[in-house]
Structure formats: structure tokens, C-alpha cells
């Protein structure tokens, strides 16, 4: 049942210790900063976090890692010039890393939402990221077996929601939002605006409301 939350705190209140949480965004574009801050405030810990990166600077996901809330990161690009909190925790052995090629990350998230139990992809074949994984030759190419990434909760950012939960995004801020919304049991969306059902052109809806559980408007 779709819920419109009055605050980001209310929107993330149900997140439990030990949850797998997907967080949208690529760089700052599409990052649900306010929801991440609320997740930090709500105190949930022992989290597995799925994001393309592993936090930047002294904000958002980086703080969540710094505070020791993140048990494991599933991401494609943890190392950045300002990923010092992740770097320190990783070198100290205090956070586990599952490094996934970015396209495998996207496709595994998509697979979870689409009910696919696993798939073969050429990406990573013959590399250390395929070590220990099942491989086979298909269509004449070496391919690696990859499994879906499901989540308990997705925290994403969209531009506008309608009252049926349909979402549209803005430019490259769309990135992981649509596939994470479909892959999580419970999807929380921060938006800049909420409009009546019928205001969005049905041709242009990117995430149908069926994938959305909670919506909160942020300033």
C-alpha cells in the first residue's frame, strides 16, 4: 500500500538492523541525500549497502560507513579521491567489499526485479572478478554466471511522483532508481514534487507506481 510520509525520518523508520539497502545515485546525480541522512539518524546498523560507489567526502553514505553501520558494500567503484572513510574501514578489515562490474551490478539488480534466478554474461570472463564463479561457453563466448541482488529496502530520488506512485526522473539522475525500485521489497522515494494522478503522461512514466511503497517530498 502506497504511503506518503510527512518526513524522511518517518519514511525510513521501518529499516531494521541487518537489512540490505539499495541506495540510488551515480556521483551526486540521483543520490537521495536526505533519505541517507535519515537512515543515519534512525540508527539501523549491520547493513549491506548496494550503491555504485562507497561514499564520497564527509557526507551521506561515507558517514554511514564511518559510523560503522555498514557491514558490507556491494559496488563497482569504491576507490575515489575522497572515499577516505571507506578506504580506512576497508584497510582495517571493518567492512566487507563485493566488487561487481558496473554492468553486472545493474543487470543483477534488474534480474532481482524481473524474477530472473541468474544469468550468464561475458563481462568479467577470464578476470579475477570471475574467480570461483561458474562459467560456460555460450554463443561462442566465455560467460560468467551471475545471480540477482535483492534488497529489503531501496532509497532513491526521483523528480516527481503522482498520487499513484508513478515516477519520472531528471536527466542522468535517473541512473539506478528504476531498477532498484523494482529489486527491493520496500521502496522509499524522495521527490521534489507530488502531482495528482493523471498529471503525468502515461507514455512518459519511468517507474510505475507498483514499485513504490513510500514517497516523501523534500525541499
Amino acid at each position, binding site marked *: 500500500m502506497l504511503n506518503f510520509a510527512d518526513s524522511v525520518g518517518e519514511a525510513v523508520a521501518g529499516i531494521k538492523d541487518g537489512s540490505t539497502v539499495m541506495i540510488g545515485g551515480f556521483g551526486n546525480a540521483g543520490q537521495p541525500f536526505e533519505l541517507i541522512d535519515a537512515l543515519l539518524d534512525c540508527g539501523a546498523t549491520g547493513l549491506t549497502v548496494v550503491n555504485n560507489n562507497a561514499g564520497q567526502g564527509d557526507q551521506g553514505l561515507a558517514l554511514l560507513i564511518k559510523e560503522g553501520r555498514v557491514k558490507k558494500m556491494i559496488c563497482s567503484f569504491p576507490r575515489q579521491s575522497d572515499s577516505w572513510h571507506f578506504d580506512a574501514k576497508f584497510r582495517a578489515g571493518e567492512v566487507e567489499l563485493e566488487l561487481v562490474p558496473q554492468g553486472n551490478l545493474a543487470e543483477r539488480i534488474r534480474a532481482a*526485479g524481473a524474477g*530472473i534466478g541468474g544469468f550468464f554474461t561475458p563481462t568479467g570472463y577470464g578476470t579475477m572478478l570471475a574467480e570461483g564463479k561458474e562459467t560456460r561457453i555460450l554463443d561462442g563466448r566465455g560467460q560468467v554466471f551471475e545471480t540477482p541482488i535483492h534488497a529489503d529496502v531501496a532509497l532513491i530520488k526521483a523528480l516527481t511522483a503522482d498520487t499513484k506512485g508513478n515516477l519520472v526522473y531528471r536527466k542522468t539522475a535517473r541512473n539506478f532508481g528504476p531498477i532498484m525500485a*523494482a529489486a527491493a521489497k520496500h521502496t522509499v522515494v524522495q521527490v521534489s514534487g507530488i502531482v495528482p494522478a*493523471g498529471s503525468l503522461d*502515461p507514455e512518459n512514466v519511468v517507474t510505475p*507506481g507498483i*514499485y513504490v511503497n513510500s514517497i516523501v517530498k523534500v525541499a
Partner: protein
Amino acid sequence: MSIQTGIQTSRTPLGRDDLARLVARDIQAGSFVNLGIGQPTLVSNYLKPEQNITLHTENGMLGMGPVATGDQIDGDLINAGKIPVTELPGASYFHHADSFAIMRGGHLDICVLGAFQVSATGDLANWHTGGPDAIPAVGGAMDLATGAKDVFVMMTLLTREGVSKLVGTCTYPLTGVGCVTRIYTDKAVFLTGPGGVQVRETFGCTLDELQDLVPVPLTAATGA
């Protein structure tokens, strides 16, 4: 409305429309639902606006409205049965892979399907008679049966020949294994699950009379 345990709630068997009304009443408010072709389509006639049900059609739409009439008819807006339909405010369109991802990914709360047979363990047979000269056609039946959180079947309990369609083991080719959670028939509503087949209510017969018609052990439901 409270549902009591395995009781006779009607003195006569239910007609198709009464059955559709019952299924509609049982669908939880706010649900996303796919109604199969044929008898299940009738359910849409009895959904109430305050239930806020969103209908999915697998050819690529959420927020499907009633069948189109007159000037509403638009060849580009059809349902899975290829009947012109309408769109409701808050509808959305998507391509076939995205539409079936909704079904296959477990996002539909309920799908309502017709059936040739349902087994005591919830196996469904509804796509193929298995006849030697029959041309098989499956469409989205297997995706719906396998993907929805709850699969409700609507059917008459007996064939025209008087044979139960609720069976120990399906003899027709299967659509899905262990997928059916409820069976709505003219004579009773059955719940299938790990605890065997339970009867939620009967129409025009007692539980004992029902048991005489059906070749699988029945028990009265202890709650629904």
C-alpha cells in the same frame, strides 16, 4: 464483513456474476491485480472505486480502465484479450519485457485465472487440453501462474460431465506447479496450501456433500 469457518454462506450454487462479485470483494484495497481472459474479466465489474485496485494487462499497461465503447475505442489501446479498453488517471505504458518483469518479479498482488484443473497441492492446468490434434497456445498463463503473489482460480467445480476439476493430480498439461492459493467455484471457495485443501465456505451444499463431489480430502478452514 467477517468470514466464518467452512460454512454454507449461500443456499444455492453461485452464478458467474455472484462469484465475480465475491472475488472482487476479497481483493484487498490498494492491490495490483491481473485478471485473466474469460470469466476472471467479470471481476472488474464488481471492483469498487474505494478499493483503489490497479489493473495490469500484460500487453503493457497498469491502470487499465473499463472496456472501451463508442468513441473511446482506440486500436492502440487493447487488453491481453485484444479487446479495446480505456485508461484511468495514473496509468502507465511499458514494453513487453518490462510488463512481464512486473508479473515474473512477484510484483502483482493477485492474478485471477480460469482453469481446466487444479490439484490439491495447487498445481494449475489451464492452457492445453493435451489432445493429440490440439495446437498448443500458452500466452502469458505460465508467467502469471508463476509470478503473482497470490493466484486465484475461478471455475465451475465440475465439468459438464460432472467430474471434479479439483483433483489429486492434474491429468492435463500443467501451467504451473504449486502456484494456486485459492479456488473460487460455484459450489465452494477452497484454500490450497501446505495444510491441504481447506474449505472456506460452501454455496448450496454442506461440507459433507461437497466432499462427495471432490476426490481430495477437504477440511473446514480455520480462518481466512
